[in-house]
């Protein structure tokens, strides 16, 4: 372990930037698990799906991945709404969500991942864009723009989501549905519809997160599994549904992972996020800014 201030600063900055990206990745689960209490363990698979869609369009038409993702958002929204409808009819209505709902999403995770393997194969895929390649240099800092750009767009996404949740009627209804469904009904709002919208948005964020992912690193179908731990760790640590909390927790995790990776080697990285998760669950299930 060679300790150098340069390395440390770069690791921390890199961690913060990656953290911004992690926040976008987690935002969907903050909605589905943090607010709606739906354990969508398949979320990473949808992110990878988003990555592949971006890749496919990028490699055949040369379109910028983030642009592709934005265009594909409605499709992902519809997918999310459809999945929620099935989930609700099969499990939530019957009170079976603990075992069978979980198994349902687990099955979806595998179906998505294996379908991608069968269609695209197991080779790593990557995209081409103007901002992939160049780096920015500030004094001793070395910031690749392929990490900077997704981070900035991620934070923008988080801001938009937060505004939506706090300033719009539907957004506030989503926050309310977690707390008091009966009150919502009395206000002539159908909680099921609200939850469907929320879950649809949750999967829609996966489209964008997928584009960010494939900009930052090459992707192959099983990459999603690494993110299961990260996503739930950040979601729980961030206070289950608090978007600002998610951003802070994500950056925290990013920094710790980055430092561990720089000084101890990347093979310990998975243990960091999952270890974080265990620690959080053991010590403070309410997270940092918990409700």
């Amino acid at each position, binding site marked *: 372990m060679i300790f150098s201030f340069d390395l440390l600063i770069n690791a921390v900055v890199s961690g913060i930037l990656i953290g911004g990206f992690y926040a976008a990745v987690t935002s969907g689960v903050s909605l589905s698990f943090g607010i709606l209490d739906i354990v969508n363990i398949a979320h990473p698979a949808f992110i990878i799906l988003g990555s592949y869609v971006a890749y496919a369009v990028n490699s055949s038409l040369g379109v910028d991945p983030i642009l592709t993702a934005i265009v594909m958002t409605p499709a992902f929204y519809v997918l999310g709404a459809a999945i929620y409808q099935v989930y609700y009819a099969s499990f939530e209505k*019957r009170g079976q969500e*603990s075992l069978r709902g979980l198994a349902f999403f687990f099955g979806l995770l595998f179906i998505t991942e294996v379908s991608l393997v069968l269609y695209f194969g197991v080779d790593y895929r990557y995209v081409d864009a103007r901002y992939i390649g160049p780096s920015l240099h500030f004094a001793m800092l070395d910031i690749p723009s392929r990490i900077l750009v997704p981070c900035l767009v991620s934070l923008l996404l988080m801001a938009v989501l937060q505004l939506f949740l706090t300033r719009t009627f539907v957004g506030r209804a989503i926050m309310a549905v977690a707390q008091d469904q009966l009150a919502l009904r009395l206000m002539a709002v159908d909680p099921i519809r609200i939850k469907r919208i929320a879950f649809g948005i949750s999967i829609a964020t996966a489209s964008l997160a997928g584009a960010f992912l494939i900009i930052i690193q090459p992707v192959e179908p099983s990459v999603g599994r690494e993110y299961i731990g990260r996503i739930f760790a950040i979601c729980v640590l961030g206070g289950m549904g608090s978007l600002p909390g998610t951003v802070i927790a994500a950056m925290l995790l990013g920094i710790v992972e980055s430092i561990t990776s720089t000084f101890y080697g990347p093979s310990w990285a998975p243990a960091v996020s999952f270890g974080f998760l265990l620690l959080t669950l053991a010590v403070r299930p309410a997270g940092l800014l918990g409700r």
Partner: protein
Amino acid sequence: MRTPTFLLVCLAIGAAVFAASLALGNDYIFFAGYVVMQYVVLSTAWNILGGYCGYVNFGSAAFFALGAYSTVAIYKLITENDFYRMPMPVLMLIGGAVSGVVGLGMGYLTLRLRGAFFAIATLALAVVLQTLVVNWDFVGGSRGAYIIRPEQIEPIGNYIRYLFLIMMLLAVAAVTIARMIEHSRLGYGFATIRDDELAAEASGVPTLRLKLIATTISGALMGMAGAPFPYYIGYLQPASTFGLDYAVNSIAMPLIGGTTSWVGPLIGAVLLGSLQQIATVTISSAVNLLIVGCLLVIFVIIAPNGIVGLIHTYLQHKPEDFVGRHHVDADAPGRVP
């Protein structure tokens, strides 16, 4: 049927299966059969915690892998240099002990968490364990470990047939244990944990202790299933040994077969395991997981009580005919959280 009788019946069936396989003459039967028997143990073990108690364990692979890696560790320690090969049953007991202890520890750390958090925690634990093993060079780390499988063993002859026999005996043991639990006070206790843990506590059921018993038994059985694996496969690699594939199978088989009794995991493992073996040979192994995933999703939506549930519905038992213990109706009022 009393337990000793049941055990004898199982052993008789097992002997018949073994004899029939020998008669077929093709050693591939033993290779495939080993995997199916292994899944019988894994799904039965999973079901003790998942089906009986209602606690979903995503980390089955970790317990399986720990059993396998105990064998590797012992192999590197003793067998490689001194050529003393520890007998398989002893290896299984050691693997079972290691995984059982880890199961107990995991339970102690995570069983205070409610449903979904517990499931996620088990996944986290599995990855942490995997990372520890990957970084442990003694057992090969990420490079993997080679085990030399002996050619012959007296009096069975071909070593692979021996492995199949051992695994089948373990499967018989697992199913018998599961059945014994079901018919005992422990089984009733497990059912109350699944139905309403709060009410169970108020009724005098020591829920934490029972849950720890469940995780320990479950973990130990999975570890015992993993112990012979290095000898079966010859080359052990953390990525595949700890793979989520074991997790999805050990969840899918009981859910498809039926979670409320020992019959379900058995049916699920035999059917799904055989299906996967056929698919691997005829199509590809990637399609395997697609099949499992699809079947899991379909069954969980359409037939929540699995194949066993479908059979019961088909035979149209009236609720009164049922002694009432193992019938979870999908339309029943949901469990109170």
